[in-house]
């Protein structure tokens, strides 16, 4: 008997306690429940993970009660832990705990402290259900649960209508994806007569032929779900707006865990995808397109969190791309390293934002490296990993992806590889730009008066420790990854070998090239940046890129506005169907009025008509 069930149960308990006490607990208690439950779960994960790695079994299973049995449908609350889940659970609880810890300081001045941790714990629980469920319905429970928490946390500052809008947008857009996912579930059930993941995979391996249409449809539907949750083209528009949430939320949900659920889903359903080259190609293309679009967009953003959001999108694009070209292990590896360094980047940016009076515009920062050394170092390390400087974790994972893409024997491998490399170059470019605008150059505006006693102060222990741990993971996480990911899939994992062929050197050199070019463009005074800005052409391009390539606008014009128009103008508020019944009513009252005109109240008139009627009746009788 192992304690597998306790991993999700701990955050759930935290959620329940915080929910039922309605925010009446003092802040320290809330912090210890909120962060502590996730911390305990992380410790437990470590323990179980160690047990798992050292045992021979391929999976740990923990059954509890039956959810429902109807006809063929038989689903239970049954947890399943294998290598893939373990990586995910490790990331969720580990990184999750660090972010929770950081948030105890970050959120200390905000209203609704308890509510925040309540939602956060619920999120961790839902995310754990997503990755640990042994059937697709349980996965869907987690899937929707994280969507809900994402909604609640984006709209956490519920007094601001724009944030509410962003939250709803996130929920509805991902729900479009979820619809694909649930239809995929229906179809799978139709085919397999079971929603159990392992049953499904077995079925795929044994009963489906390569390239079968039904399998491709299932895969594409699954991809639709993944695209929604992971903010890939074409359902990516919600992620930048989701930055309305508090920064720890962005770090946990919109960078490290929830948005990678799509990657997890595809990896989990690997056997289906392996049988469908078309679907694999789609995954790769979706990843690449997102990668490019997001990178270009990140290049012209002025909001530091939006830069990171687009960066997240592009990095997940990398993961999709990896899955699409068959680099399963590399994709998952990148998921893990990305969770480390992106969480670090977000947390660091959060500290900067707090220090700047909630100012997120990078053009109003500048020269902060002296004043905010801790966030600066954190940001620096995170950026290094993001641009994949050698020996950081990001380097290993990205390198593995690019290498695999090059070796992939598809018709498009060269093209794919080229695009991916260009995107890597762009990544360094926007990262350098972000660093340059934020930390270097001249200060553009006043900073918050930093009080030593405020809990969120960047040098407080609850800020520094998560930074330090995440920084260590961002650098050393690469080495950790080999151990984990080696056992994930049949593709022999990722190897820590250095290649010295031209391709490898190129991938090695691209980040440096990007950094150097970026330095000249954004940091040094050698180049007059105004040339870039004044140019009319570049203005147009930057406007286009800045708006996220016009997706928002297109959706607004095509879907949102027409729907609003027919719904909110008074066109049909009173329900056209009712007109029919109103017509009946109208006719009835019309006849009523006509008939009541005969009722004059003159008795003699009545008598007269009665006699007249009598006459009519008689005449009828006589002549007919």
């Amino acid at each position, binding site marked *: 008997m192992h304690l597998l069930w306790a991993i999700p149960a701990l955050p759930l308990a935290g959620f329940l306690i915080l929910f039922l006490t309605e925010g009446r607990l003092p802040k320290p208690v809330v912090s210890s429940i909120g962060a502590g439950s996730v911390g305990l779960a992380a410790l437990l994960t470590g323990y179980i993970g160690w047990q798992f790695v050292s045992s021979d079994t391929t999976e740990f299973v923990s059954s509890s009660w039956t959810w429902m049995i109807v006809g063929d449908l038989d689903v239970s609350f049954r947890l399943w832990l294998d290598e893939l889940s373990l990586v995910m659970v490790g990331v969720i609880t580990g990184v999750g705990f660090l972010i929770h810890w950081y948030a105890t300081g970050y959120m200390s001045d905000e209203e609704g402290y308890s509510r925040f941790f309540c939602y956060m714990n619920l999120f961790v629980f839902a995310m754990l259900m997503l990755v640990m469920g042994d059937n697709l319905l349980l996965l869907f429970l987690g899937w929707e649960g994280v969507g809900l928490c994402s909604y609640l946390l984006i709209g956490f500052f519920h007094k601001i209508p724009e944030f509410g809008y962003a939250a709803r947008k996130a929920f509805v857009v991902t729900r479009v994806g979820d619809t694909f996912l649930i239809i995929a579930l229906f179809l799978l059930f139709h085919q397999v007569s079971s929603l159990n993941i392992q049953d499904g995979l077995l079925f795929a391996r044994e009963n489906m032929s390569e390239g079968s249409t039904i399998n491709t449809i299932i895969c594409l539907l699954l991809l639709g779900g993944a695209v929604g949750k992971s903010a890939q083209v074409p359902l990516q528009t919600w992620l930048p707006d989701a930055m309305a949430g508090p920064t720890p939320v962005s770090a946990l949900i919109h960078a490290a865990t929830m948005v990678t659920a799509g990657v997890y889903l595809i990896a989990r359903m690997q056997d289906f995808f392996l049988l469908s080259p078309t679907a694999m190609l789609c995954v790769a293309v979706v990843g690449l397109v997102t990668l490019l679009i997001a990178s270009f967009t990140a290049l012209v953003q002025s909001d530091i969190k939006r830069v990171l959001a687009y960066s997240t999108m592009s990095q997940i694009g990398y993961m999709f791309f990896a899955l699409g070209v068959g680099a399963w292990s590399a994709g998952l590896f990148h998921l893990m390293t990305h969770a480390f360094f992106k969480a670090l980047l977000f947390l660091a940016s959060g500290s900067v934002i707090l220090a700047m009076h909630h100012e997120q515009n990078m053009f109003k920062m500048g020269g902060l490296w002296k004043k905010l050394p801790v966030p600066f170092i954190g940001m620096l390390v995170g950026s290094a990993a993001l641009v994949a400087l050698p020996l950081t974790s990001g380097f290993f994972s990205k390198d593995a992806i690019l290498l695999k893409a090059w070796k992939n024997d598809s018709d498009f491998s060269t093209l794919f590889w080229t695009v991916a490399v260009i995107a890597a170059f762009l990544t360094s470019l926007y990262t350098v730009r972000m660093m340059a605008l934020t930390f270097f150059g001249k200060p553009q505006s006043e900073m918050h008066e930093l009080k030593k006693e405020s809990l969120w102060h960047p040098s407080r222990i609850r800020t520094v420790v998560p930074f330090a741990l995440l920084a260590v993971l961002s650098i050393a996480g690469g080495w950790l990854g080999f151990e984990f990911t080696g056992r994930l899939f049949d593709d022999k994992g990722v190897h820590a070998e250095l290649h010295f062929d031209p391709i490898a050197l190129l991938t090695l050199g691209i980040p440096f090239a990007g950094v150097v070019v970026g330095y000249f463009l954004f940091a040094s005074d050698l180049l007059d940046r105004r040339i870039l800005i004044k140019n009319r052409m570049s203005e147009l391009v930057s406007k286009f890129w800045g708006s996220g390539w016009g997706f928002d606008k297109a959706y607004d014009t095509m879907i949102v506005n027409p729907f609003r128009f027919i719904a909110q103008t008074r066109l049909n508020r009173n329900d056209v169907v009712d007109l029919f019944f109103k017509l009946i009513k109208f006719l009835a009252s019309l006849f009523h009025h006509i008939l009541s005109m005969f009722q004059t109240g003159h008795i003699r008139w009545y008598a*007269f008509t009665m*006699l*007249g009627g*009598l*006459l009519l009746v*008689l*005449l009828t*009788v*006589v002549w007919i």
Partner: protein
Amino acid sequence: MSVWLFYIAAGVAITTAILAVTRKNASHALIYLVVTLLSIAVIFFLLGAPFAAALEIVIYAGAIVVLFLFVVMMLNLGRSSVARESQWLRPGMWVLPAILSGVLFVVFGFEVLQVENSAKIEGQVVPPKEVGKVLFHEYLLGVELAGVLLLAALVGAFHLGRRYLEERRET
């Protein structure tokens, strides 16, 4: 002899009926009505329905018309009302009802004449005893219903009258 009696009674009934509906003085009209009713009673007798004739006299002429007279006296419809009546009975008002009555007469009469093998009434007397037998056997339900009707009328009349009294007491 009896036949002539019938036609005489019929003539009296028609004449007095016309007079009754055209009088301006209510009391006079009621007296004419009594005469009509008596003539009809005579006809009933001739037709061999002595019980109906008796009821006609006792209840109609005796009770109902007297009730009318009471009301007329109670409302004090004296000379002034006669003047008002003559004002109301303008000749123009007669035309349409007269035409309608005429047409009805023609149609009805046509109908009556349609009856083939028209039989004569021989004046076979149906005594009260026989009427009673049938009334309380075959028409028992009708008697019950008539009883209910009379009760309802009693309650209704009582109610109408009582409210009148109460309200008058208030003023």
